[in-house]
């Protein structure tokens, strides 16, 4: 395990590697403003995930969602599905870090005999809500008094500014360039071009188009920043024994790791300014799964900005700190590039901004062999979820 350091630490998780698997996945369409609600999207994704597993809503006896964006919480689930049975519940799932933690939360409930089939959902209608500024990524950050009193008045708000400041410092420390960040944007776009479900499916992009795109917060350009989308996804987790009797080959939860930052959402205070708590999460997940970075066949990372993917690739040990720029160059992130296939559905940058839940669904497709940009012989699939104050790594494998 990574030793605890001054700015963050791993969280001890019970080793439940291999005990559960994802057996059903469901998605809505991914779009710009649709006029729909997060709840409506979450319900559609949930219905499809349950059906994909070959189950019925009454079979679901565990439900996880995200407290930050509770599109389908217990009340909404019971109301829509008319479900009156026992329900294990947790608001620590959903998307972002929670999309990586949801299978582990389910595994604990299943190990304790409190649930059999656990449904995790996440959905947003932020493209629809954007016009009224009632939703969106910055909204929650305005609830922190330190931000309101000491960051917003100086213009250090919201996310594109935090991560531009981090990208600049990464460039100063390590010589990272805009073209390095462009490699990440181009890999996501190339994968979206192969994926009919991706918002940017019909929009190819060249490096010169990337470099010519307007600056938003220098050095971050328009195409360094994620989409704002309507959409949602869901997945069902059950025990490995039960999974082997269902319709699809199990996507086994082999390992999970969780890391936290002591400075939470106040990036300007983070001592390791160009790092994420993924550095505390990944070693635990890899140890639980009995793998190392070299064993990973496909990686999806929570990628609101290109720089965050580059940093997490370093933090998870795929290369050394500061070596991310050269590492992602030369097409190494492409699904058929012979390197580290990355965000093969298109990521938050070019697939849809549904905060990581589609990243996990994509890994399940990769393991089933049904992804649009399929990695040949995919057996080990890893998701890195990130919220800022915490990060989590999820290792999924075939049924070995």
């Amino acid at each position, binding site marked *: 395990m990574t030793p605890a350091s001054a700015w963050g630490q791993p969280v001890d998780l019970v080793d439940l590697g291999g005990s559960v698997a994802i057996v059903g996945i469901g998605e809505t369409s991914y779009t710009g403003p649709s006029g729909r609600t997060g709840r409506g999207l979450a319900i559609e994704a949930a219905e499809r995930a349950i059906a994909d597993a070959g189950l019925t809503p009454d079979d679901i006896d565990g439900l996880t969602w995200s407290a930050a964006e509770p599109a389908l919480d217990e009340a909404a689930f019971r109301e829509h599905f008319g479900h009156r049975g026992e329900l294990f519940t947790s608001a620590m799932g959903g998307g972002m870090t929670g999309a990586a933690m949801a299978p582990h939360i389910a595994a604990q409930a299943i190990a304790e005999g409190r649930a059999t089939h656990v449904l995790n959902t996440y959905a947003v209608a932020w493209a629809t809500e954007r016009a*009224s*500024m*009632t939703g969106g990524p*910055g909204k929650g950050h*305005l609830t922190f*008094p*330190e931000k*309101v*009193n*000491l960051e*917003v*008045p*100086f*213009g*250090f*708000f*919201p996310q*594109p*500014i935090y991560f*531009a*400041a*981090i990208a*600049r*410092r990464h460039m*100063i420390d390590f010589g990272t360039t805009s073209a390095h960040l462009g490699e990440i944007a181009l890999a996501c776009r190339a994968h979206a071009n192969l994926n009919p479900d991706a918002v940017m499916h019909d929009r190819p992009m060249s490096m010169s188009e990337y470099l010519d795109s*307007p*600056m*938003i*917060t*220098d*050095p*971050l350009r328009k195409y360094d920043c994620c989409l704002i989308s309507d959409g949602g996804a869901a997945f069902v987790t059950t025990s490995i024994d039960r999974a082997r009797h269902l319709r699809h080959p199990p996507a086994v939860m082999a390992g999970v790791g969780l890391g936290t930052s002591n400075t939470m959402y*106040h990036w*300007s*205070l983070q001592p390791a*300014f160009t790092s994420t708590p993924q550095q505390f999460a990944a070693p635990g997940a890899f140890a639980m799964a009995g793998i190392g970075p070299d064993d990973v066949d496909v990686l999806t990372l929570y990628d609101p900005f290109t720089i965050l993917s580059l940093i997490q690739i370093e933090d998870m040990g795929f290369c050394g700190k500061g070596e991310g720029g050269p590492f992602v160059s030369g097409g190494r992130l492409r699904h058929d590039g012979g390197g580290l296939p990355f965000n093969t559905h298109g990521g938050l940058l070019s697939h849809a901004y549904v905060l990581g839940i589609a990243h996990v669904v994509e890994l399940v497709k990769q393991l089933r062999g049904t992804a649009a940009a399929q990695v040949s012989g995919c057996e080990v699939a890893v998701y890195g979820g990130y919220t800022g104050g915490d990060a989590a790594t999820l290792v999924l494998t075939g049924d070995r």
Partner: protein
Amino acid sequence: MKLHHDFPFPDPADQLTSGFWSAADRLELAIPRCARCLRWVWYPEAVCPTCAEPDPAWTATSGRASLFTWTEVHRALLPEYADWCLTSLRSSRSRRIRRFAWSRGWSVHVRLT
């Protein structure tokens, strides 16, 4: 446009952070410092996180700093910032106003030394 009317200006009555703005009124850059262990406590906290001494006192710094990182904001991310960014673009030929624009269109981080 909800945020336009609810723009979160700093609250001068906020107990933890009001000392920063009172010091700024005196043209001082102040940070709370623990009276017992002499550690700077940033962001402000009611008790020192190291030695639990209460009420770290707002203490003027030298104001000297080194540039740590920066970003030039090209696009307003909240409606309230729109004028700031427009100022930055419009006045790029005027040295006097450009300095004004710097203080508004840029986010600059310094490390106090």
